[in-house]
């Protein structure tokens, strides 16, 4: 088998695949963060906690309630979305008029509460989650072995990201959303229920995080700490991409996943800090982020 810089091609491709999977999760989360920031002007620190909540809800539905994988994959995000809607209605809404800082601290507090609660109940160890029967095994592509579930994760994440992007950029509802970002008072004057739209936006984006959690459950074990380690990397991704463009957020997320995968192949010790180093470079060269509209 051919080598690239002393690394067997199959190993390299395997790491690239892992990188793309991580990138898919970064994309699902940073997409939600970007939309929430665009619409609500809130940096949602609890996004990682909702990802974890999605994983645990799926695990609970599967192991205790006996739901199937596919039901779980739909039901868990919906449940997380409902929790998100409640949080927006009861807490977050009251802080819109204030400094950004307070909504950041509120969502940070919610993240701590969720993580602390689950750690208290379930302990720090992970819960195993079986790969669904229809998606086990793998395909031998000749140059590498491709596990079906991993391919499924990448495809479904990309499809959802693209659909979300289309919904916002190309549909009438998306046009209302974008208009409400620019001038909520005017949009409200046209008879559109802006507060409801904000609740639904938050619920949808948080639901996306929950979906990512349910999707990730068979790959990584479900554990209380799974969200907080991820959200910090996603923050770095968001800083790199800038939150001005949804397409930019998706592209940056995937690219950084791949960069991380490549680092793992060539210099494993630096893989956990690769994303942060890219962030430092971007801040030095283009402080406003790669796809930012502020320039």
């Amino acid at each position, binding site marked *: 088998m051919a080598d690239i810089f002393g690394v067997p091609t199959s190993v390299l491709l395997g790491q690239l695949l892992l990188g793309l999977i991580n990138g898919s999760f970064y994309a699902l989360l940073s997409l939600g963060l970007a939309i929430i*920031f665009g619409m609500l002007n809130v*940096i949602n620190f609890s996004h990682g906690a909702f990802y974890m909540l999605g994983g645990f809800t799926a695990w609970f539905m599967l192991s205790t309630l006996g739901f199937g994988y596919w039901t779980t994959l739909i039901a868990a995000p919906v449940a997380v979305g409902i929790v998100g809607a409640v949080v927006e209605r009861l*807490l977050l809404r*009251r*802080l819109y008029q*204030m400094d*950004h*800082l*307070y909504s*950041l*601290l*509120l969502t*940070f*507090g*919610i*993240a*701590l*509460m*969720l*993580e*602390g*609660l689950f*750690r*208290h109940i379930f302990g720090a160890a992970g819960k195993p989650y079986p790969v669904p029967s229809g998606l086990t095994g793998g395909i031998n592509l000749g140059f590498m072995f491709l596990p079906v579930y991993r391919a499924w994760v990448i495809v479904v994440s990309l499809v959802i990201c693209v659909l979300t992007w289309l919904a916002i950029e190309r549909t009438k509802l998306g046009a209302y959303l974008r208009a409400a970002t620019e001038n909520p008072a005017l949009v409200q004057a046209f008879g559109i229920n802006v507060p409801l739209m904000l609740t639904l936006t938050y619920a949808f984006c948080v639901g996306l995080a929950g979906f990512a959690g349910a999707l990730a459950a068979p790959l990584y074990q479900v554990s209380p700490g799974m969200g*907080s380690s991820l959200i*910090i*990397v996603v*923050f*770095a991704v*968001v*800083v790199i991409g800038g939150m001005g463009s949804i397409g930019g957020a998706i592209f940056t997320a995937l690219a950084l996943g791949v960069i991380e995968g490549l680092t793992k192949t060539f210099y494993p*010790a630096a893989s*956990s*800090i690769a*994303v*942060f*180093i890219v*962030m*430092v470079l971007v*801040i*030095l060269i283009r*402080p*406003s982020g790669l796809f930012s509209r502020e320039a």
Partner: protein
Amino acid sequence: MNSSTVSSVSSVSAVSGQFRGNIILIAVVGVLMLVAPLLVYPLFLIKILCFVLFAAAFNLVLGYAGLLSFGHAAFFGGAAYITAHAAKVWHLPFELALLAGTTFAALLGLAFGALAIRRHGIYFAMITLALAQMVYFLAVQMPFTGGEDGIQAVPRGYLFGIIDLRNITAMYYTVLGGTAIGLVIVWRAVNSPFGHVLSAIRENETRVTSLGLKPERYKLIAFTLSAALSGFAGSMKAIAFQLASLVDVNWHMSGEVILMTLLGGMGTLIGPIVGASIVVGLEHFLSTSGLPITFIIGLFFVVCVMMFRRGVYGELKLLLERRRS
């Protein structure tokens, strides 16, 4: 014209009254702290003191410059590692070990500050968090930090080469002195022209620029000073507890110092002192209760942000002022 003169005179007398009040308060607290080790377990008091200084240093950037740093654990914990290593492996005397940790934190603060200040508002928080996480990962991986175990059994050494710090009372008074020096530095910085420019930047950065000042430079100095003092607090903690561990560099630590400042009252000198005492006391109480600490800390955050954003000291001050008028 006349009324404005009157109000300015009355505000001057109010300030001097407040000043007198503060002096009395400081004297009372000072005496209490001097006799405290007779009544309370000294190591617990040392912990409070270290966090008081940490929170006061953090408040310099959050409360006065209006910059929300989510990465102060990197300075606190990073300095703890350097001090512990300097004392244990390099066999540096106590003072030089503290200096090594503090200097490291200052340089790290300068680097982080220079990067993070290039972006505003919410991005500043995210960048500092990400940079601090990088320090955390380095602490996990680098050989000298001891991974999960941390650096244990750090020798305390001797103060000025003569006073044996293995004596817990001597250690307590040393930390008390260090914290007092740190607090005086914060107080001087805030009540100086520099401090007023910082507050002006928080209120209206554009206007400060139009006055011919460079906000970036002020923010960077404040951030570096805050990092150095946080590092000083972390260094003292490492020596007193003879331990530097991953807990000190974890992002939870950055969150905790935010909570201390918020809970006590940001932008006040007394607030962080009150907040740090409450949070450390609370954790001490909770650690034996079997209740989920992280959950309760999170709950405090939510309650603070939703119900009393001025913090305990801020609300108290407002209450007193209302009663007076």
